[in-house]
């Protein structure tokens, strides 16, 4: 028996050694994962809440912003959109809707759009993009105040033709050397407002 085992061992030496290394490394990984898990989850939660709170002033909610999440299909783009409902005393006051502009200069531009229940925008922020540094990245608040030009806008103000860049007789500034990026953002914010109009009875319904 012992001899058989030894023979099995020596003929599979490579496999056994490789297996032992894999076992030790996996154990170390499992330990690290367990040790960091709660902290990573906490970081992600804080990061999500911080990003969400940037598009909606604190007066519109009395709970963590990622508490009420609704997924609804968007008939225009054919994709699902995530909406975060903001409530005071359990009565919906505003929503934050995730948006993705697919026609940026370099890939998708992810946005969060905060909309009050009367349809005015409380804030827009870019959460992820790959636009050209120094040109298209002026959509970040860190680089310019442009993204704040959406604050207080709605589908009624400006009216439909105003939801475009200035060079297309719209209300929004383009950047020097970059028009594709701001145009994509303006269009996507407008689409998000239309989505909000289409589903607002569902989003703002009392539970």
């Amino acid at each position, binding site marked *: 028996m012992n001899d058989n085992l030894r023979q099995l061992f020596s003929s599979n*030496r490579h496999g056994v050694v490789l297996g*032992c290394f894999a076992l030790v490394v996996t154990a170390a990984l499992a330990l690290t994962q367990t040790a*960091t898990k709660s902290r990573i989850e906490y970081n992600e939660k804080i990061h999500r809440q911080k990003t969400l709170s940037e598009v909606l002033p604190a007066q519109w909610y009395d709970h963590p912003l990622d508490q009420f999440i609704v997924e609804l299909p968007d008939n225009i783009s054919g994709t699902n959109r995530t909406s975060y409902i903001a409530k005071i005393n359990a009565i919906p006051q505003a929503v934050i809707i995730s948006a993705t502009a697919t026609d940026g200069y370099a890939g998708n531009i992810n946005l969060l759009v905060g909309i009050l229940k009367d349809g005015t925008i409380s804030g827009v922020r870019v959460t992820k993009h790959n636009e050209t540094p120094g040109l298209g990245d002026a959509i970040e608040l860190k680089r310019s105040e442009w993204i704040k030009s959406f604050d207080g806008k709605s589908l009624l103000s400006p009216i439909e033709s105003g939801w475009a860049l200035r060079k297309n007789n719209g209300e929004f500034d383009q950047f020097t050397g970059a028009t594709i990026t701001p145009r994509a953002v303006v269009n996507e914010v407008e689409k998000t407002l239309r989505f909000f109009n289409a589903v607002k009875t569902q989003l703002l319904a009392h539970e």
Partner: protein
Amino acid sequence: MNETSSTTVTNHDLPNAGVVNSGPSFKALLSAGLWSNNPALVQLLGLCPLLAVSNTAINGLSLGIATAFTVLLSNISVSASRRFILPDIRIPIFVILISGIVTMVSLLMNAYAHEMFLRLGIFVPLIITNCAILARAESFASKNTVFASTIDGLATGIGFAVVLVVLGAARELIGQGTLFADAHLLFANLSSAPLLNFGEQYRGLLIAILPPGAFILFGLLLVFKNLITNK
């Protein structure tokens, strides 16, 4: 591996400064990793992350620390287990060890420098493919003591990190007019204000931040290094 091992330092290349254990001396190891056999400037290894992430000094520093930590741990674990490493399957063993270490480093970074982790994105897990690390395991750590490998790992890691920071600082300064902006992403108690700022009027030379700028400035860095070496 032949290609890399021919350019890397082995026991034979290093002057033996009379150390009892007949291994390479502490000083020789340090100067090899930092200067004469620098992984980025001399071996030209691991250039993909080097060129991609060095758009600001703090990005470079973050990836530099993560890489240095990985090469240090990889060298220690490879040299500590070198008696069990069978020659035929040494590369798979190195890869298991290195990928495990990188995954640990990225978990730790996710936990303790979350924003930076998000900013570096795919380049943290991609440290696994940095062949400078595998080259150290193959040509040094698998043949030397834990102590010598630790020093070698430290020197190599710091040598790589310094190049990342220097290139990042140059690109940030030329392209953006700032130095060490957003340091709070890596060290929570530092301010996000840059160490040095040319001011709002400086529009920046855009190409320095874009990928071509990385190649051009890295080329200039190599010229500079060779000028000093060949003087």
